[in-house]
């Protein structure tokens, strides 16, 4: 048995057994362990994660506590959990204050992209993250209704104040249209809107800015990928083979534009009868999972087709806020956590997020 007295070094050494499953490194090497204090047998420390929405937060804390308690002479532990979301490296052309921009995209329309965006944004905000939601679907802006945002953005002169609902800062073309009015724009106007929504909105400090894209591979997608280095995109699909095939086109587009695909989600995955609770695979199931496996992309999960999801959206309160313990809400919250984890993986492990030096 070791007779070494209990010390910070000993505590740190013991914590090397705690490995972050996404980053595949121990929490000491990752620099997550902070403020280690040893006072007699009492050990206090802080674990600083890369997202407040960490899906394995409680497991990491439990493992850390067990590792410390196994040391001789420990009588009590106090493990605090905090989070600082990593930002783009300085030198990249990014929106000041906005740490990560994630596009929510699909090949086809009607797969529930906006419902998913609203719920993911609200779910991330519930974990304590600072979240923005940009509705880039000019043709059918539905985010204001789904988030119950009835105010209009305040004009601050050269900048716009986003509307805040359910803890999320929101901007949408829908705020500027009268009921029944339609946007009939060509590419250059769409390009201008994307740039203004990114650059002229007072986003402040954000950990995640989610961008709800219109379906397909057109002007808005291109403008977004040109305006800023996207952290990545989340691809939404329904389970049908045709939908998955079209989703692959969206993936090919993001690949061409060097915007990494952070994962795939299957929406409308099975129908849950509100009366008897029975599950019916209306559109089939597992198509998106199989596609993700084939394309070597992370699969972040599926959301069942439940009328409660739509009803809550119609009422203007996403189900993750209105009824957080409903099965669909739990699924959506878990997807939000996995997405946040993928953002961290992207930021911390891949070299192609390093800034490019231009000496010209």
């Amino acid at each position: 048995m070791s007779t070494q007295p209990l010390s910070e070094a000993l505590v740190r050494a013991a914590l090397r057994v705690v490995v972050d499953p996404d980053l595949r490194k121990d929490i000491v090497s990752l620099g997550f362990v902070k403020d280690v204090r040893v006072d007699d047998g009492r050990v206090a420390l802080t674990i600083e994660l890369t997202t407040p929405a960490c899906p394995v937060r409680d497991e990491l804390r439990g493992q850390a506590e067990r590792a410390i308690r196994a040391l001789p002479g420990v009588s009590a532990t106090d493990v605090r959990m905090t989070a600082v979301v990593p930002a783009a490296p300085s030198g990249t052309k990014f929106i000041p204050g906005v740490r990560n921009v994630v596009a929510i995209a699909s090949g086809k329309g009607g797969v529930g992209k906006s419902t998913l965006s609203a719920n993911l944004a609200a779910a991330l905000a519930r974990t304590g993250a600072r979240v923005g939601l940009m509705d880039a679907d000019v043709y059918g802006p539905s985010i204001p209704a789904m988030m119950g945002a009835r105010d209009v953005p305040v004009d601050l002169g050269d900048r716009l104040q986003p509307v805040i609902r359910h803890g999320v800062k929101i901007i949408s073309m829908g705020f500027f249209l009268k009921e029944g009015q339609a946007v009939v724009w060509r590419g250059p106007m769409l390009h201008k809107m994307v740039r203004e929504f990114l650059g002229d909105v007072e986003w402040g400090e954000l950990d995640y800015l989610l961008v709800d894209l219109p379906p397909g591979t057109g002007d808005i997608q291109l403008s977004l990928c040109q305006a800023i280095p996207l952290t990545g995109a989340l691809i939404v699909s329904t389970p049908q083979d045709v939908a998955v095939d079209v989703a692959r086109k969206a993936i090919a587009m993001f690949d061409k534009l060097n915007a990494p695909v952070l994962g795939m989600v299957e929406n409308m995955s099975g129908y849950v009868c509100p009366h008897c609770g029975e599950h019916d695979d209306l559109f089939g199931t597992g198509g998106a999972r199989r596609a993700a496996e084939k394309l070597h992309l992370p699969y972040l999960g599926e959301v069942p087709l439940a009328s409660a999801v739509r009803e809550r959206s119609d009422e203007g309160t996403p189900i993750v806020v209105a009824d957080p313990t409903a099965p669909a809400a739990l699924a959506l919250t878990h997807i939000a956590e996995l997405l946040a984890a993928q953002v961290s993986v992207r930021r911390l492990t891949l070299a192609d997020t390093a800034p490019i030096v231009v000496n010209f």
Partner: protein
Amino acid sequence: MDAETARPREIARSGEADVAIEWADGHRSVYPARTLRLGCPCAECHDELTARPLIDAARVPEDVRPLGIEIVGNYALSIRWSDGHATGIYAFRSLREDCPCEQCTKTRRNATITAHRPR
């Protein structure tokens, strides 16, 4: 080509007017200014579907040179030229594929010959 190979580490001037890219894998490409200008991929200079050149080489000054370079998103660069043109977006991937260095030119030529060899 993977994203890593087609990722510049540094973009700088080479000589008076040429553009040099040092890639993440250490490879270095130097693009002569006028060739780069004549190869501008924008819709005004090359037909979007057929890639047929629409640009009139005779109207591009012999000493055309880049005045500034900017990164576009995460995948390309754009060049502001001395002849006033600025709409071209050069994808990193195509720049790397078209690297004019001797080694890359040879590899491309061999690949073409292999592809067309009668069986």
